[in-house]
């Protein structure tokens, strides 16, 4: 079962309150996503740490049910 956009967004914003999640369905199949996550919690963290925070928010689904998520992270400006 692929994950829906709303489910992905919900998990991320629950773990990172105030985060903005911009999702794009890359293949039109609800299974290949590109996400840009902008979150105040990323401040002072390096890219690896920022991506790990998003993966943690997704609770182990990354690399499993969520096969393809292209991820970009940023702090709010």
């Amino acid at each position, binding site marked *: 079962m692929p994950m829906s956009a709303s489910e992905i967004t919900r998990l991320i914003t629950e773990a990172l309150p105030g985060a903005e999640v911009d999702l794009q369905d890359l293949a039109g199949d609800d299974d290949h996503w590109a996400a840009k996550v902008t979150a105040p919690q990323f401040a002072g963290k390096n*890219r690896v740490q920022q*991506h790990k925070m998003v993966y943690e928010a997704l609770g*182990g689904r*990354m*690399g499993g049910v969520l096969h393809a998520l292209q991820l970009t992270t940023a702090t709010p400006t």
Partner: protein
Amino acid sequence: MSDVNTRISSIVGDNDVVLFMKGTPLFPQCGFSSRAVAILDHCGVAYESVDVLQDMEIRQGIKGFSDWPTIPQLYVKGEFLGGSDIMMEMFEAGELQALLTEKNVAKAD
């Protein structure tokens, strides 16, 4: 340390640049791995690749080793740099090229 961690440590320690990927640089088996290969080729550095599809122990073990859930994974001089998204971001910002130069990584033949 478990055996697989020891194996991964020695691969990462013995090679300046290592890409854990699905497939081989000539025949990548996944779009993300393919992108990682293209970036490294563009940087013109010599690198070792490990095909995790040929080694189930490493395929699972690498995720625990780096605490990172996906493949590909890039290591430079023993340090985990990230997956293909981070590689692309760093490459586009010129940071990856700068880091490889700074770390004095050998050029590809």
